[in-house]
């Protein structure tokens, strides 16, 4: 092989490629900031899927019927799978899963704040599937067109698999609303608690989002926080009304001129409080993950040693 001089395209070529809706692939030249920005966003997304196993996983052993139990297991399992796809996408940027997990544990890397709320009743499983997954999907559908190839492909796969998640959640809510007064109250209480955190999932308003402008230019993000949030509200309000749930927002009303729902002010102080580590379950979520990782260390180590032994004995034979 002759050593050719690599023609490194500069930032201009890079941006031109993005502007032309071409995907960036792992071995392409990319600005270091683009790489870091992607690592931050994709790994945060991966961590969210993995930490997201917990609030729902809590109810696997308590699900009210065998069918619900199987559905919930399949859903939580999908979340682990989605975390895996996303870690793999992040790894193409030159960072290992081990390093990513380390960043999660040290707090250097965040996950979706919504998972710091507890899942207190069975209705919460309905609310999470319906609201949290719907919110996630609104965001993820837009990310199927993100500029980084491996991220976009992971999103396509994830969106395909997630379609059942929001439906099963809504189905739980619907079943509760068709049930006894106790069940309807349980469903309404869950909506009351999950509504605002779901709106917060889309992040700060466009004007205040630290990463938005650059991410939009690089097409890492395709639609703005407020834009996605509005779409979510428009969908969810209608879905709530269809089964007799009341959205806990006195300012909510349809705006004919805009063709959208107007909604009340989000409590950003609460958002800040939870994201900075002081939500109801931040400590438990992280402790749970650290513990599982620590308790699995001897298994991972044993695998590596076993593999090395096998390789050696194969070499002996050969």
């Amino acid at each position, binding site marked *: 092989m002759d050593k050719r001089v690599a023609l490194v395209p500069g930032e201009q070529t890079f941006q031109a490629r993005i502007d032309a809706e071409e995907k960036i692939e792992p071995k392409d030249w990319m600005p270091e900031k683009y790489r870091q920005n992607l690592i931050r966003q994709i790994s945060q997304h991966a961590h969210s899927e993995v930490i997201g196993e917990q609030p729902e996983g809590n109810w696997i052993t308590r699900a009210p019927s*065998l069918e619900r139990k199987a559905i919930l297991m399949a859903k939580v399992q999908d979340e*682990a799978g989605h975390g895996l796809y996303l870690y793999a996408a992040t790894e193409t940027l030159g960072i290992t899963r081990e390093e990513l997990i380390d960043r999660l544990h040290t707090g250097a890397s965040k996950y979706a704040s919504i998972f710091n709320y507890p899942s207190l009743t069975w209705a919460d499983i309905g609310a999470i599937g319906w609201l949290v997954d719907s919110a996630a999907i609104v965001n993820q559908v837009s990310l199927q067109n993100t500029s980084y190839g491996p991220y976009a492909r992971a999103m396509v796969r994830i969106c395909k698999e997630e379609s059942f998640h929001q439906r099963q959640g809504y189905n739980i809510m619907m079943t509760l609303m068709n049930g006894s007064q106790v069940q309807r109250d349980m469903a309404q209480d869950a909506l009351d608690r999950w509504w605002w955190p779901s709106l917060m999932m889309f992040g700060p308003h466009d004007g205040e989002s630290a990463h938005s402008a650059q991410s939009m230019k690089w097409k890492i993000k395709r639609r703005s926080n407020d834009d996605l949030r509005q779409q979510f509200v428009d969908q969810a309000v209608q879905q709530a009304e269809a089964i007799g749930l009341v959205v806990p927002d006195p300012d909510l009303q349809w705006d004919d001129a805009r063709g959208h729902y107007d909604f009340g002010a989000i409590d950003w102080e609460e958002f800040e409080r939870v994201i900075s580590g002081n939500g109801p379950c931040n400590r438990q979520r992280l402790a749970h*993950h650290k513990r599982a990782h620590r*308790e699995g260390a001897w*298994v991972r180590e044993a*695998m590596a040693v076993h593999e090395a032994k096998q390789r050696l004995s194969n070499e002996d034979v050969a």
Partner: protein
Amino acid sequence: MKSDDPVTRYALRLGDDALILGHRLSEWMSRAPFLEEDIALGNVALDFIGRARLFYQYAAERVGGGVTEDTFAYTRDVREFTNLLLCELPRGDFAFTLCRQFLYDAFSLPFTEALAGSADSRLAAIGAKAVKESRYHLRRSRDWIVRLGDGTEESHRRCQQALDELWIYTGEMFETDQLIDELVALGVAVDTAELRRCWIETVSETLRAATLTPPTATADVSGGRRGIHTDDLGFLLAELQFMQRAYPGLQW
């Protein structure tokens, strides 16, 4: 939810084994040593929950009168559960869970193969479906035993310890009683005593490959088939049945 029908009672035993083992496996979700294994354990757990549902559905049809699969899972007390004790032991560490799984899978594969030939066509159909799952389960759990047994000093020690603890619960898989004898005579039930040799072969071969020592304990602890359980099952049921107990008679 008592039934005197032998086939129903037999189906419930098999359903109970699958439900309780599946439940224990499901406790691992979000707790496995790494993500790939989280997903894989989830698949095995789902197979067992699915299997439990098939046995319970069949039993429910035989009992009739509005009884469903959930009646069996959620409204019976400890004394009415007839699963093997092996299935109900707490999940322990990863070595314990995988050793238990291996010891059970090594039994479950020849068992489901034999069940597929049952004179009862419904049980035979469940057996035929379960064989495919069991073949994969055994491949997986055998593979793990070898990796952990012939891994590090710590993994070997944990694995050996788990085996030693589990061993006394394995004899119960091969026990027969009046119900089994009666159904074996009709060609409905599997004569588990006949599976023992096959089980021992699989286990011995695997332990050898894993550099593990076959436990020497000769005593057997049993009672599950008669509803005599360890204390652990009551706590498992308290969790499993919480919703149906707190809000009886509702649809979810």
